């Protein structure tokens, strides 16, 4: 059987770094081929070369046995290669149909196109209405727009760059269903991810990249996730561990907190009550959009609470803003790295200054001490293994995983009494995620109290002492993680509170 696409000795160097070093791989027709690797392993560069966005320095590609050198994405699309980007290239103010029309060389009339979109979305089980404005869609629905845009051009090879990093578990199931169907019809899929369980469930073959080189291939179904992770990282992985600790006194208390959401499409918080004790990690799960952002905002001080709802060490802090709460020792790291947790165009030193000024004494009488700020930033980079040339680089220039390490590290190193994090390992590779989780555990070990809000249930089960779920702005009663079954968690996420039976 001849391969659909084969890469032979592809090399691409950027100043100071060889992104791809003689990479070779073969993709068979109808195969789901995984490309595995840590952040910075060269996965993105490789697929950009296949999609015509980047030209290789040397090496060759053949498609259907013929030489293949796409000068631009248009040529790649014409040759039957489609790509779904990690960060969607969509237009918020336009409708689904308009977005799809823009990605086609010769788009049919809008009415005919809408019909085609309906047909494809029915065939592949991707519900999507062509008339909706993309700005109102969820991340999963946006991804469907991109996928359908590719499918309408009947690609032979579909490249998917970390497609599940923004999806809920249900959406992941729908996506996998679609991909299996496509592969059964003969479309090959190049699937980039670092979520190993997903790859084991979906892919037929895997190529593993480390530092720009192919370090191994395997059949994911017959290889354990751990073995793949170790090939990817190149060392033996340690799972985050904690020794059991005595829980201290209650430090943060929410009393029947009800707050409206600041955004028009947000979810208000409804009667949220809990007590957080020293040395404890409280994991909060739930499907995205059920009040996670609002809860973080209410705790960080971006949203103020009426009197008597939020107590910190016995003091009512509901009326205090983020800066005063930071002074007291209540720190937070929001989900959105670029634009919320960090200012994209400011350097790492400046970003370190922004949240660290008070607690790290980087400021005196309104004057900023840049020397200390730089050494604080350097300390974060050092201790959290942030891969960047130095603290003078803009936050935007860091890859997602590296910026995430920086953003979490910045808060952890400020010795918080209470730390609230939302999606601490979102879009972060296995070893970095393990490092972040270990840092959170160490922090709790040292006596701090943590609230970890996450979509990743495995992560919550791994590190938290107690688990609660947010559902439509209500928080279920927290229960000890140990011995919690998947069914119980499902019930909590579905909205059954305490021992009540769900009312269907």
């Amino acid at each position, binding site marked *: 059987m001849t391969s659909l696409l084969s890469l032979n000795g592809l090399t691409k160097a950027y100043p100071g770094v060889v992104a791809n070093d003689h990479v070779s791989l073969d993709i068979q027709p109808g195969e789901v081929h995984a490309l595995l690797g840590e952040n910075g392993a060269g996965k993105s560069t490789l697929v950009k070369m296949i999609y015509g966005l*980047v030209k290789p320095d040397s090496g060759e590609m053949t498609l259907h046995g013929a030489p293949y050198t796409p000068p631009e994405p248009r040529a790649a699309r014409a040759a039957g290669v489609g790509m779904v980007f990690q960060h969607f*290239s969509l*237009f*918020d103010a*336009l409708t689904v149909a*308009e977005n799809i029309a*823009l990605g086609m060389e010769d*788009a049919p009339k809008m009415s005919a196109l809408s019909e085609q979109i309906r047909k494809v979305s029915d065939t592949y089980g991707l519900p999507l209405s062509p008339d909706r404005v993309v700005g109102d869609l969820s991340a999963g629905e946006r991804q469907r727009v991109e996928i359908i845009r590719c499918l309408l051009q009947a690609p032979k090879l579909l490249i998917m760059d970390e497609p599940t990093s923004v999806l809920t578990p249900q959406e992941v199931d729908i996506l996998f269903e679609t991909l299996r169907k496509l592969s059964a019809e003969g479309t090959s899929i190049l699937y980039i991810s670092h979520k190993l369980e997903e790859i084991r469930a979906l892919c037929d073959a895997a190529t593993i990249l480390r530092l720009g080189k192919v370090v191994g291939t395997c059949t994911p179904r017959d290889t354990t996730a751990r073995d793949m992770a170790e090939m990817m990282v190149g060392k033996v992985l340690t799972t985050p561990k904690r020794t059991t600790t005595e829980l201290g006194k209650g430090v943060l208390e929410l009393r029947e907190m009800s707050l409206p959401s600041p955004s028009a499409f947000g979810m208000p918080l409804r009667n949220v009550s809990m007590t957080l004790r020293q040395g404890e990690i409280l994991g909060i799960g739930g499907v995205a959009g059920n009040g996670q952002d609002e809860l973080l905002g209410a705790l960080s001080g971006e949203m103020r609470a009426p009197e008597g709802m939020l107590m910190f060490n016995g003091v009512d802090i509901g009326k205090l803003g983020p800066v005063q709460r930071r002074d007291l020792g209540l720190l937070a790291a929001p989900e959105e790295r670029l634009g919320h947790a960090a200012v994209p165009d400011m350097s790492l030193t400046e970003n370190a200054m922004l949240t660290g000024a008070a607690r790290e004494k980087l400021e005196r009488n309104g004057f900023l001490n840049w020397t200390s700020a730089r050494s604080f930033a350097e300390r974060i980079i050092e201790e959290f293994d942030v891969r960047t040339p130095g603290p003078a680089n803009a936050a935007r220039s860091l890859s997602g995983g590296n910026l995430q390490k920086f953003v979490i590290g910045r808060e952890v190193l400020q010795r918080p009494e209470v730390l609230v994090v939302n999606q601490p390992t979102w879009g972060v590779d296995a070893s970095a995620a393990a490092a972040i989780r270990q840092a959170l555990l160490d922090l709790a070990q040292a006596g701090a109290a943590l609230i970890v809000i996450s979509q990743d249930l495995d992560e919550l089960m791994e590190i938290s002492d107690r688990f609660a779920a947010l559902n439509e702005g209500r928080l279920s009663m927290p229960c000890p993680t140990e011995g919690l079954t998947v069914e119980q968690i499902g019930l909590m996420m579905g909205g059954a509170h305490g021992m009540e039976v769900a009312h269907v």
Partner: protein
Amino acid sequence: MDLSAINPILLVAALMSAATPILLAATGELVVERAGVLNLGVEGMMIIGAICGFAIAVETNSPVFGFLAAAAGGALLSLLFAFLTQITLANQVASGLALTLFGLGLSALLGQSYVGIKPPRMGDINFGPLADIPVVGPILFSHDPVLYLGIALVALVWGILKFSRIGLVLRAVGENHDAAHALGYKVVRIRTMAIMFGGALAGLGGAYISLIRVPQWTEGMTAGVGWIALALVVFASWKPWRVLLGAYLFGGITQLQLNLQGAGVAIPVEYLAMSPYVITIIVLVILSADKSAAPGSLGRTFHASH
């Protein structure tokens, strides 16, 4: 005070004429902004159009050639803006302000020998018996061709933006230039075309003032109309028909307050004079409250990295 001196039919007919310069300039700027470019040089392009149109109309004794020259003059000046912002990636706000100052100065220089001259008149379109219909006739069928062109352009811009492929691409470029580039659209080329279209319409609007509204040449005669057009685009939420509504509202109140002044109403002249600005802004703010529809890449510099 004698309100009966105000003839409502003449008032409506006059407001359409008063609104046309703003309408033309704002329609052009709307297209520019929908492509993601903020050109604050509307005033400068208008005054250049006013003098180019005036000079050529006088020299050729043809108002039609005058208007053509005005459009060309405005487009030429806007090309300077396009060069600064699209090729050398200069800041759009600063470049636009510079364009206005440059246009005002250059027009004063060009216009020195044209002060005090009367331009050839452009006749109204003869609609024959239609013009004799009571009320409707004098309001709708007694105007010059450029006024009708202005309304037609609003309809045309609306239709193209909404229904055509080129309009879709233009909106896409304005909405997210990085994504448009990734899909292979020529962002700089599309924006340059939009900027020139905006310049041409601003030039037409300026010439409408110097050839039809006033008609004579004086320095700085556009008197801020370009700025009103800019504001109108924003308050109209970048929608063509709302631009028409806003322009007519502004023109209407301008005419009405002039008539009221003439009739000797006991309101201080200053209040009457400011009323068009205030009322237009209030109405359009209320209209635009539904949803802010600013193009996503408006005013942002595009650089095709990688």
